[in-house]
């Protein structure tokens, strides 16, 4: 994406379609979960689509991202195949991680998506390491790491910030401040001014943006990523957003004030982006077509996933490690078709 194309409606329309893809994926994933088709639980990215989309729009295939437990949006934005992702959720052959990981362990190394993560903050320390590998190899690539607001209270967050600055690594930290950490209001357990002030204490340049405004995120991400690419060292992007859905698929949001969710839903990023596009002269039909294309692609992904076979139980023994057998069940304990 060349610089002059930025903020061009055609580009934003494309990114709008990516956001729709994420939205559709999350909606269909929830339906699949409710229908009992998902083996584990899921963390939805609904309402935060602009952050992952705007950031990844400024990354190249050769750049890396590291994600967290809420990784569907990051994965799609970085170019992972939603069909393979849906298969992963449903535990089918063809899943991104061979159906070994599920929602929290989606990864697609072919597009530089180095993995979602079930343990908070570990993506940060791994991210600085990936950036160090880039530096050691002299590659022309950068790393972006996504971290939730609640996770900025874990120690490894600070270690990673310090580390990135000490070694002047090519890394962008993206703090997605969606207001909540699980059922806890993050500000109720967070001292001081928050993530931006904390990053600044390490001398790191920071950016603050309305994370529900795709155009704004895209522009700020371009600037921050440009700085990283330009050798200016680590940058910190704080995106203010809101998690409109429950923390996990089972969450009934009992901890929220009445009307809070609805109030925030009014700010969700897709509608705002569609309105911006319309204002910029994109035809309503084209906007609708982008949305429809996204939903159609995800619907097809769901069908393909449902039709895909379950992996054979014996695949469980693959990819543990090269050395040392996984000590599989002896003959008399092996059960055709798995457990009793």
């Amino acid at each position: 994406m060349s610089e002059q194309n930025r903020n061009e409606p055609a580009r934003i329309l494309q990114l709008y379609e990516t956001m729709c893809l994420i939205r559709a994926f999350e909606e269909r994933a929830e339906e699949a979960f409710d229908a009992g088709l998902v083996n584990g639980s899921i963390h939805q990215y609904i309402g935060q689509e602009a952050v992952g989309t705007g950031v990844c729009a400024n990354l190249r295939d050769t750049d890396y991202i590291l994600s967290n437990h809420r990784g569907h949006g990051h994965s799609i934005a970085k170019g992972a195949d939603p069909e393979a992702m849906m298969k992963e959720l449903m535990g089918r052959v063809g899943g991104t991680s061979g159906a070994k990981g599920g929602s929290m362990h989606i990864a697609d190394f072919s597009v530089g998506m180095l993995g979602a993560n079930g343990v908070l903050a570990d993506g940060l320390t791994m991210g600085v390491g990936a950036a160090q590998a880039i530096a050691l190899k002299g590659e022309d690539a950068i790393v972006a790491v996504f971290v939730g607001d609640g996770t900025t209270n874990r120690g490894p967050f600070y270690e990673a910030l310090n580390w990135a600055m000490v070694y002047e690594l090519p890394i962008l930290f993206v703090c997605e401040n969606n207001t909540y950490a699980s059922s806890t209001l993050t500000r109720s357990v967070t001292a001081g001014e928050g993530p931006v002030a904390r990053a600044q204490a390490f001398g790191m340049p920071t950016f603050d943006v309305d994370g529900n405004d795709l155009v704004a995120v895209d522009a700020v991400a371009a600037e921050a990523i440009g700085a990283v690419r330009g050798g200016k060292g680590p940058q910190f992007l704080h995106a203010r957003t809101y998690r409109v859905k429950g923390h996990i698929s089972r969450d009934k949001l009992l901890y929220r004030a009445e009307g809070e969710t609805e109030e925030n839903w009014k700010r969700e990023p897709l509608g705002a982006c569609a309105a911006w596009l319309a204002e910029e002269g994109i035809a309503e039909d084209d906007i609708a077509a982008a949305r429809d294309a996204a939903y159609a692609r995800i619907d097809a992904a769901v069908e393909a996933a449902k039709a895909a076979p379950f992996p054979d139980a014996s695949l469980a023994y693959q990819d543990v490690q090269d050395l040392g057998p996984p000590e599989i069940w002896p003959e008399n304990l092996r059960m055709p078709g798995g457990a009793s």
Partner: protein
Amino acid sequence: MTEMMFQDAVREGLAEEMRRDPLVWALGEDLSTAHGGTSANQYLGLIDEFGPKRIVNTPISENTIMGAAVGAAVAGTRPVADLRMADFGMCAVDELVNQAAKIRYMFGGQARVPLVVRQAIGVRKGAAAQHSQSTEAWYVHTPGLVVVAPGTPADGRGLLKSAIRSDDPVVFMEHKDLWGATGEVPDDEGVVPLGKASIVREGSDLTIVSWSRMARLAEEAAEALAGDGVSVEVIDLRTLWPWDKAAVYASVGKTGRLLVAQEAVQVGGFAAEIMADVTEACASALETHVRRIGAPRMPVPYAEPMENEYRVTPARIVAKAREVLES
């Protein structure tokens, strides 16, 4: 007796201890809020009765949840630190093993560390590699710690009470898949002593020793074997350190045959310890060598067929039991 869900029984136990002793308090992520999901309801409503100084909703700071619990314990209170899962417990192994377990000893007995750390173990459907681990063997191997792994609502409640009253640091490992399980819970105080096994089924041909949710599967296996005329004694250890050697030795003295069943990865698991111990201690009583069953040495996979391949099931216990019986 009242029929209760495991998580409700344990919550009751905590509430009763908190009423009994104002120095008991709990800390952890999301303790004071209600999800509506299953797993976060272990503290539901306690904030209303005990307030935010005793039901402490913490930042996501595992090192400090554990470290603060240690500091608060040596300073004279009785914290219950909740790390949610043994997998996240790995973020605070240092504070548990280097501090909680050693303080009394390395300070020459000047201090006690009366804390309970809750960290749930076990495979829960589709939870995959980072939310399914059973790490009880690590803590059995750690001097200074008591390790508890209850398998019924009554034991969960009764052992939590003992754990809270204990002056030793106790690692309290619930099974995530038991949280929603139901069972009879006594209407009285129902304290269950630490270190005492529960003989959940008497038998004369074979002893199966197990703990946590696996003890329930061992009961299922025993039931199946009973259909074939085999009389199995099932021992639910409940406490893994110190484990009830007397009960196990006595049972082995009766049956002459022992199978240890665990959910954790077999290699290096706690079953090996029981085997090693009983092999030496009961050499003359054993009619055949001790056997064990545990999971393959692999991370827990996600998709159902593979997840099932990981699991120790009643059918597999039965098959292994037959091997013991036929040898």
